[in-house]
């Protein structure tokens, strides 16, 4: 399983989770975990996802997220989970 972290942050607005989740669903990317919070009107969400269903390269998936970034005017950053596992798990 190729796991990745998608972090979404920016000014809060309606439908952020829906928009991101819909896109991931279209790409056949399964969401494994979500944490989300709002602090002073600032939205932050972290999703752990499984990329294997997408049958696309990491770069292609990242490019697919670009329209969502543009539409929501939010920072959407995807990175492989391995870096967190390496740092925090022996």
């Amino acid at each position: 399983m190729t796991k990745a972290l998608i972090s979404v942050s920016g000014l809060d607005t309606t439908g952020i989770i829906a928009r991101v989740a819909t896109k991931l669903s279209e790409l056949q990317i399964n969401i494994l975990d979500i944490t989300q919070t709002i602090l002073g009107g600032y939205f932050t969400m972290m999703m752990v996802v499984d990329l294997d269903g997408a049958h696309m390269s990491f770069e292609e998936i990242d490019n697919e997220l670009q329209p969502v970034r543009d539409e929501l005017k939010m920072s959407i950053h995807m990175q492989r989970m391995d870096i967190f596992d390496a740092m925090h798990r022996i």
Partner: protein
Amino acid sequence: MIETGEILQTLRMIQEENFDIRTITLGINLLDCSDRDADACAARVYEKICRVGEKLVPTGETIEREFGIPIVNKRISVTPVSLICQADPRPIARALDKAAAETGVNFLGGYSALMHKGATAADERLLASIPEVLAETKLICSSVNVASTRSGINMNAVKEMGEIIKKTAELTADADGLGCAKLVVFANAVEDNPFMAGAFCGTGEPECAINVGVSGPGVVKVALEQVKGQPFDIVAETVKRTAFKITRVGQLVAREASQRMNIPFGIVDLSLAPTPARGDSVAHILTEMGLEMAGAPGTTAALALLNDAVKKGGVMASNHVGGLSGAFIPVSEDIGMIEAAAAGALSLEKLEAMTCVCSVGLDMIAIPGDTSAATISGIIADEAAIGVINNKTTAVRVIPAVGKKAGDRVEFGGLLGFAPVMPVNSFGNEAFIARGGRIPAPLHSMRN
């Protein structure tokens, strides 16, 4: 499952505390490129580096994107050129520079000679060409090993290097002596060092190998901010834990690069390498321990603790550790060191003491332009003696600032930074350096 707090800690390290992978360095063996004809040798060198190194930069960039960790430099190190040049080495230098540009790497190291016991004809030819080559090429770094614990100190080479450093500074005077920033004189040079200017691919290395250098002085400093006033036991433990975490990422990047390029993994260099950016300083780790500035009494002890704890933490995080491994203390590349030198807290002599306990040596230090070649040779000899006697790598990378005196400033730009010109002890040593010959290997070299 990784907890949110852990994810945030990693992201904070990268985004706010300047944690990065300082370099992926691809070591390439060039012994099979040797030829009596200099141009034929150069052509082979160019072809091999471009072929083997083709995927290095794109692979590094892909890993950066996918893992969300900056990889600041992609570099190539090659077999010391004196071992492959049977004629004029300058065509090879031009081929190396061209190949470095073609592959897109930041630097290429290995315009080097290993002459700790004596010089071959090829070593002499290479040495003579260093000033011209460093002035005329952009991406090549040069290193010369003049001493080792096993063989002692080659004082003929030490003498010659003083003159070569002076000449290199003169030929690159319009760039504040930038050529000297690409030239390092070693004792006990290592074969798998990923850092410049001293990287080369040793003869004990495989055909090619991926060596990775990590960095993160800012991360260590922030971690120490959490243990203000605590005893040194806690300080050492905190550094160890942090070094473990950052080295694990280095190991991950090295493994990925190795797999993707189908090139064997060599080593991870457990290093704290600073940059001139604020929040990326080794000196500021020392001040966080309670010193007003780097150079204050206690600095050597603080650095000894830091260097040791970085190794203890890092060694568990990687299956092969090598290179220079430890804390670097370059002056011009570290804002805390620059400030300490400018304030007069840090002298050349204190830096020399610090090199007894850090990973390398006197690094990126601007000295007055009128410093004599013999004085520079004396500095090299002292530093080599520290390395030889203490069985460690030491090095000298000093930059005589032509036309400038102590207190003036030199500017190299980028990661090489800027530095105040530091005063140098100007009492004479000409008769000492003129002796030449070899200082014998110390008693403890006989370990068999």
